[in-house]
């Protein structure tokens, strides 16, 4: 019994070592979303394209889609923009939330670099962003057909991130086209 007790510090060391090793690959600034598996928060905001009127959370129901929070002042959004265009070509539905931005600049940006969004919400005060728990652009959410939030990714969307997003979308009934 004595002998086994002597190994206790070593066992503790192994245990700690394992957790510390795992910690090396964790990102401490990444916040888990508090809204996973909760419905899209209710809102009523104008469309970026003023001609399209108002949108509400009801407009987010009916299909599995991505929700991308973006802004023209955010350099990472510029980086991911071309990839979003590609996703649109693949047939992925993407909703956009233009977060704390200026309307003209946003419209210009889309004209210049392409518009991958099915619809775009103008959120100049960040109200919807606050309700979603957005803490930095860009953020991309997976929304299922009932308007329930299933996943959040903070940061640019690229090939690798898309694989994760795709698997979440497939698990909630998305059908890949072509």
């Amino acid at each position, binding site marked *: 019994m004595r002998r086994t007790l002597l190994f206790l510090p070593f066992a503790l060391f192994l245990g700690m070592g394992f957790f510390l090793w795992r910690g090396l690959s964790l990102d*401490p*600034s990444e*916040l*888990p*979303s*508090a*809204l996973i598996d909760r419905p899209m928060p209710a809102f009523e905001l104008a469309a970026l394209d003023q001609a399209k009127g108002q949108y509400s959370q009801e407009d987010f129901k009916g299909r599995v889609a991505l929700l991308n929070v973006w802004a023209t002042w955010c350099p990472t959004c510029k980086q991911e923009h071309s990839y979003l265009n590609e996703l649109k070509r693949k047939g992925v539905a993407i909703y956009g939330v233009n977060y*704390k931005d200026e309307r003209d600049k946003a419209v210009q940006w889309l004209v210049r670099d392409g518009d991958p969004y099915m619809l775009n919400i103008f959120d100049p005060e*960040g109200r919807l962003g*606050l*309700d*979603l*728990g*957005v*803490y*930095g652009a860009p953020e991309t959410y997976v929304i299922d057909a009932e308007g329930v939030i299933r996943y959040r990714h903070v940061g640019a969307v690229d090939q690798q991130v898309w694989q994760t997003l795709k698997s979440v979308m497939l698990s909630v009934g998305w059908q890949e086209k072509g």
Partner: protein
Amino acid sequence: MLRIFAGLLLMLTFQLGNAAIDTYEFNDEQAQKLFRSLTEELRCPKCQNQNLADSNSPIASDLRREVHRMVQEGGDRQQIVDFMVARYGEFVLYKPRLTVSTYLLWYGPWALLVIGVLVVFLIIRKKPKQQAQQQVAGTLDGQQRQRLDELLASNTEEREQK
């Protein structure tokens, strides 16, 4: 002329003391106190280790504005805390709430202290027992002592002969 120029240049630096100072007005002192204590207890979601009161980031000033709005509307502490946690998760609280998942955090140190005291106590209890045993072994009766002396004597003789 140069002096005027230098003076103007100096005046530019006055703008740099731009800390997280928003001016908010409150209905009463209680509201102001609530605002202050909440912004000191809520963590800025983006800045890792600053509270809302200290942080300069846009999200922090948005959240300060929210807290101010809710305080002005008469919300109480619990409501505002719940609002923030519903959107940003438990991370946003500097004082974690007492739920099943935070038992380890709150009670862990006390549990370790109790275990430590227990271990020390057990060790102390063993010590006097060991000493008592040694004392008992140390007392030999007269006959045994004589035998011991004989043995020691013969041992020393052998050594001297060598």
